[in-house]
């Protein structure tokens, strides 16, 4: 199966603009056996549809010539998979009226649309070490779910000025089927102690369990172990521990 590697078009490497990736089973096979042998092989290996996202070169030529053929050259992502992505929600969690008449709402959002600069500022507030912004952005984009809390302050009167502030976040990575890990749970120190962190994590857990993702794990600092125990987490259950990689030079 020959596949056209188009990424070289956008890369800035010194390699030629178009390169054919010979994605053949064994490179020597191409020389020894006729091409139609490859075709039969690719049909046999089509049992697993999920990886056939790139069109086989010979299939696309075949489909062009044969009329009414049922060979599906392109496999679109199955609709079932699309439905499994968590639907973004947004709703008001808490609403408070302040003495001066201003209304403060705390909004929960699972859309994942977080400004990395706001997040960086929030991490600074809780005292976390700084991490590269590009990496933060990539991590947020590729997480299974990002839950965030915003505080919207509406000043009294007809000014209409709304101040939206990021005050909490939690995110989880997952393989969408079995395992998930919760990372980066943080709440603005000024809003801690109200159950907001608990709400964030509970939402994540609910979203994960509703998709039947059963292995939910996290790595807790010593001062928050009790917080997670109250949420239903168990430390080192049945002897399961997490280990981390250390580079050896």
């Amino acid at each position, binding site marked *: 199966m020959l596949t056209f*590697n188009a990424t070289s078009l956008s890369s800035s490497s010194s390699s030629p603009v178009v390169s054919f990736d010979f994605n053949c089973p064994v490179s020597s096979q191409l020389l020894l056996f006729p091409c139609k042998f490859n075709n039969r*092989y690719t049909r046999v290996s089509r049992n697993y549809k999920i990886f056939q996202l790139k069109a086989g070169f010979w299939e696309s030529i075949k489909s062009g010539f044969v009329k009414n053929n049922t060979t599906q050259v392109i496999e679109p992502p199955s609709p079932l998979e699309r439905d499994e992505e968590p639907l973004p929600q947004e709703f008001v969690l808490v609403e408070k009226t302040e003495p001066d008449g201003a209304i403060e709402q705390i909004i929960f959002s699972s859309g994942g649309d977080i400004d990395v600069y706001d997040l960086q500022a929030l991490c600074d507030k809780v005292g976390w070490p700084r991490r590269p912004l590009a990496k933060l952005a990539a991590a947020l984009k590729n997480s299974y779910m990002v839950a965030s809390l915003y505080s919207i302050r509406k000043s009294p009167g007809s000014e209409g000025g709304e101040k939206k502030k990021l005050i909490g976040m939690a995110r989880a990575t997952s393989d969408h089927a079995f395992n998930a890990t919760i990372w980066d749970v943080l709440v603005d120190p000024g809003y801690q102690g109200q159950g907001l962190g608990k709400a964030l994590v509970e939402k994540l857990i609910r979203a994960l369990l509703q998709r039947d993702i059963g292995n939910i794990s996290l790595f807790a600092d*010593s001062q928050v172990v009790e917080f997670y125990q109250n949420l239903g987490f168990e430390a080192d259950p049945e002897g399961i521990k997490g280990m981390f990689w250390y580079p050896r030079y």
Partner: protein
Amino acid sequence: MVAVEVTAGIRMHVNIEQRMLEGYRSKSMELKWARRRNSKNSITSEEKLLRPTAGALVPFYISTDPKHINPDELQNLYAACNHSCYRFPNHVDDGGRVEPVDIHKLRIALSHSSVLVSVFCKPRYIVEDNDDIAISTTNSPFSIMGVGNFLQRVMPLPVSPFNGQLVGFGRAISDYGLTASIYDVMVIPSFRRMGIGQTIVKRIVRMLTSRDIYDIAALCSDNERLFFKACGFGDDILGSTTMMYTRSTSTTYEVDQRTTRAGRRFLLIPPVREPCGSSQKTVS
């Protein structure tokens, strides 16, 4: 998805799926050798004919290409290694065998894993286990055409994902920015203690570090801990505690306690708390 119109009549959709593409950009032949360690038990003469002798070199092919993985073969590998995707697995009999992994969920998991590593070996090196787990016959084109053995004798091709059998596997989930977790590293029992598992983990780590991800975690039970330690993993330097969600029932009486099964545990789904609209009412 980017559609590229090459010539009239031929239209190829090139899927620039960022998640998996970079992983297998380098398509170098990944043939490696493993040496069987000397077995402690004495080998009878009949077994010596069947088994490759201790100390012999066994060639295997390590691949990071998701297309080389056949979910059915992988399901068999999970069964052969008695590995469950659930951390608290359901045992189907007293022998400690776990329930077979759900192939539909396995497919979903594979498609959303950032790194997939598979190890193949030629069938003639594979020896059936004592407890009679039948390793699925190879589905290479050679055997289908019926001339497999003949061709292998006349023209022995190097082991590849297409003429070899899946003997090892490992996968990792990452957010492509900061963190990654390694799951489901397994090698069939007769191929253990040859360094294949370590090679799998090292390959996963290499693929992650090449993308600048150094925060790599692996959840492991007691018997896996030594293995990961040998692969260069250790306890967290920051001293964090590993925790997993295990709540089954709530202590307070809840009207509607919904649970979902995860292996042998039934995990409680946190009840929905009404988002309030009135003032000065705090949630939870």
